[in-house]
């Protein structure tokens, strides 16, 4: 059937987990993709890598659609004679709708488009969140973009030193923990910043991600320069009858998430009250009390008893800045900068903050310096001045332990200009 012999890859057809090899083979056999040889040659070049234990792809090349500086990743095979079907194999990043809901009708339109203009292979989805069309040639890019914008009303995502495609958790669409409308926030900011997304003008990449609550399902705290994480500042709503139902065994704790093992009878003291990181809960055998002032909204008790405990009603976001993967200075998670902000359409305050931060980063950032690295280099204090925020103990785990404070002249009474003669008048040399 296939044009290449792939004994190594064939080993990956066995076993229970879905096999991408079998899937590519079914595309080879039945697909109507325009680049006839592409899936077949992808299997071929991967088999060669399995034998050689080294990749056979080369970086880069100037590819893109006119007027955009991102959205297409150029890729060439280093054995084009052996694998002509993937000699040029560029990917197209297609901006996914908020939290990746689809209708079958729309997905089919995307499939048709991609079969007309590429390999018929995709990533659902890339790590940033985009729909990724995997592998096409340069001549297909403009027609694909034209048809995608005209017929599907759909745009590309970001790549390069620009705003990357923002991503959100499913939020209020199907999650009782969501503290704001992550989908709307993500969609709104994506549309607001189309220019920044398509035309690289930043020192490096910049990512927004929107988590509806501190459970963090899109990993914003680890993966985004600006992380929006839902939270609340009033009280957890308690349904005491439902608490009793959990204690009495009528409701499955953790919504059943631990039901595959016999962990014994649910013990509210041991499993909830004692595990609360702040020790702010009390259970007296009939009533659950929470000292909400001390709660840090870790989500544990809500996760265990979703039917009894609900987030508060005065909800918004905490905004954290500066996460990045380890290259170069080591991995960083985002740092809490705005403890609480209301997060309602049209999100003006959040956008003001975004723009202040971008202006500073574009002014001060070195080439390929992520925001988190710039904050380290220029100091968090400087960053707070840029954001026009007052320092707050919530921003640190603990105060500094070294006293090497870089005092500013204007902070010291009388300034720094002194008279050595006046000093000498009192102190001999």
């Amino acid at each position, binding site marked *: 059937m296939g044009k290449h012999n792939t004994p190594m890859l*064939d080993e990956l057809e066995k076993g229970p987990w*879905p096999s991408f090899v079998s899937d590519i083979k079914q595309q080879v056999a039945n697909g109507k993709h325009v680049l006839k040889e592409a*899936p077949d040659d992808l299997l071929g070049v991967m088999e060669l890598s399995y034998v050689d234990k080294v*990749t056979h792809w080369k970086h880069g090349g100037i590819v893109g659609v006119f007027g955009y500086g991102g959205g297409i990743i150029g890729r060439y095979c280093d054995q084009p004679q052996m694998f002509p079907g993937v000699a040029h194999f560029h990917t197209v990043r297609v901006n996914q709708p908020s939290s990746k809901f689809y209708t079958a009708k729309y997905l089919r339109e995307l499939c048709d488009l991609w079969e007309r203009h590429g390999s018929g292979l995709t990533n659902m989805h890339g*790590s940033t969140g985009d729909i990724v069309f995997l592998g096409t040639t340069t001549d297909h890019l403009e027609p694909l973009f034209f048809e995608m914008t005209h017929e599907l009303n*759909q745009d590309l995502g970001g790549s390069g030193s620009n705003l990357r495609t923002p991503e959100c958790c499913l939020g209020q669409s199907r999650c009782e923990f969501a503290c704001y409308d992550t989908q709307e926030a993500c969609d709104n900011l994506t549309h607001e910043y189309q220019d920044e997304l398509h035309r690289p003008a930043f020192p490096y990449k910049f990512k927004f991600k929107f988590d509806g609550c*501190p459970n963090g399902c899109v990993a914003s705290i680890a993966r985004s320069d600006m992380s929006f994480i839902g939270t609340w500042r009033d009280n957890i709503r308690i349904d005491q009858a439902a608490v009793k139902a959990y204690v009495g065994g009528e409701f499955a704790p953790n919504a059943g998430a631990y039901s*595959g093992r016999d962990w014994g009878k649910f013990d509210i003291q041991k499993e909830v009250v004692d595990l609360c990181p702040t020790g702010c809960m009390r259970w007296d055998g009939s009533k659950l009390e929470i000292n909400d002032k001390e709660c840090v909204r870790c989500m544990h008790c809500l996760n265990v008893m*979703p039917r009894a405990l609900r987030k508060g009603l005065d909800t918004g976001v905490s905004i954290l800045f500066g996460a990045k993967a380890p290259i170069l200075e080591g991995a960083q998670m985002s740092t809490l900068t705005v403890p609480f902000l209301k997060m309602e359409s049209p999100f003006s305050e959040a956008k003001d903050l975004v723009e202040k931060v971008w202006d500073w980063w574009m002014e001060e950032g070195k080439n390929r310096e992520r925001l988190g690295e710039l904050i380290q280099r220029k100091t968090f204090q400087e960053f707070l001045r840029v954001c026009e925020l007052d320092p707050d103990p919530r921003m640190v785990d603990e105060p500094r332990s070294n006293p090497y404070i870089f005092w500013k002249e204007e902070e010291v009474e009388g300034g720094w200009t002194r008279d050595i003669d006046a000093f000498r008048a009192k102190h001999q040399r």
Partner: protein
Amino acid sequence: MPYDPSEPLKDRITDIGPRHYGEFLPPVIKKNKGKWLYHEILQPGVLVHVAESGDKVFSVRVGGCRLMSVEHLREICDIADKYCDGYLRFTTRNNIEFLLADESKLKPLVDDLKSRKFSGGSNKFPVGGTGAGVTNIVHTQGWAHCHTPAIDASGVVKAVMDAIYDEFDHMKLPAPVRVSLACCLNMCGAVHCSDIAILGIHRKPPMVDGEWIDKLCELPLAIAACPTGAIKPAKTADGKKSLEVKAERCMFCGNCYTMCAAMPLADEVGSGIAILVGGKLSNRISKPKFSKVVIPFIPNEPPRWPSTVAAVKNIIDVYSKDAHKYERLGDWAERIGWERFFEKTNIPFTHHLIDDYRFAYTTWRQSTQFKF
């Protein structure tokens, strides 16, 4: 009105962004958005969410290969049409969720999904990935599409998931275990906060293609790309401008190769896998934390990476037996102490595991509290 290559800019549409999510929400979700009361996992992979109105939406979660053909996508669409009025979604971790309001179609949907197999016998739509178990492994491109990988991505994921499949369709671990894979240090997938991270690493400094380097690359950019300052200008024997790598300074990051194609570093024995454990993202009970390197190197073993698979399985098995309920892998390791972690998992502790990069001392033990 198709694209006209002679007038590429005619009627051009740009900057329209993504489609609005509102077009794709099932009616029951549109109606109850923001008014969900609670959820319950009915069986591994099957959830019900209940709204204040009493409405319910059922979600059936199935694992997906993120490298997916349009043939497969069309089959997903057909299933969504048959049972779900055409509605579905994908999760952050590359799972597919079929969404339906009509409970009577739930069992037929699950049975149908479980019955579909690929030609080689693997499940097309494994149902699971919820609760205290292992869900899909997020991963990057590997040998399918990238120029800097040390390892393949899809193949390693397939081999590992086959071996721990039992944890995908059960919920019997002490807490969720999130496994992630990135095929080089760049970590496009940002795996650095995972319970278990499988990371491709190189161990040989880049070669310098002296004949070509000055033609292919901007030499100063390659020099500037190196985080450790290991690259300096040089000349080849016949006087061509070139670069030289101070090998003992190289941290094998591959930045120079991204900048300059004349400095390849992947190697059949030099490149392989490191395993990191104990990271987490959620704020539940303990704060988010980074994963830590516990196995510095495992050789590349295509097609099924048996040593890597065994290492991951061993860590999960020991954790599963030893940890308390609700304890994430990293919380468990911290409670018992890392010295115990190595003892219990039988993983040798080597000098590679002691940090010697920037801020290294923050991970050294500055106390006399330790366990014998």
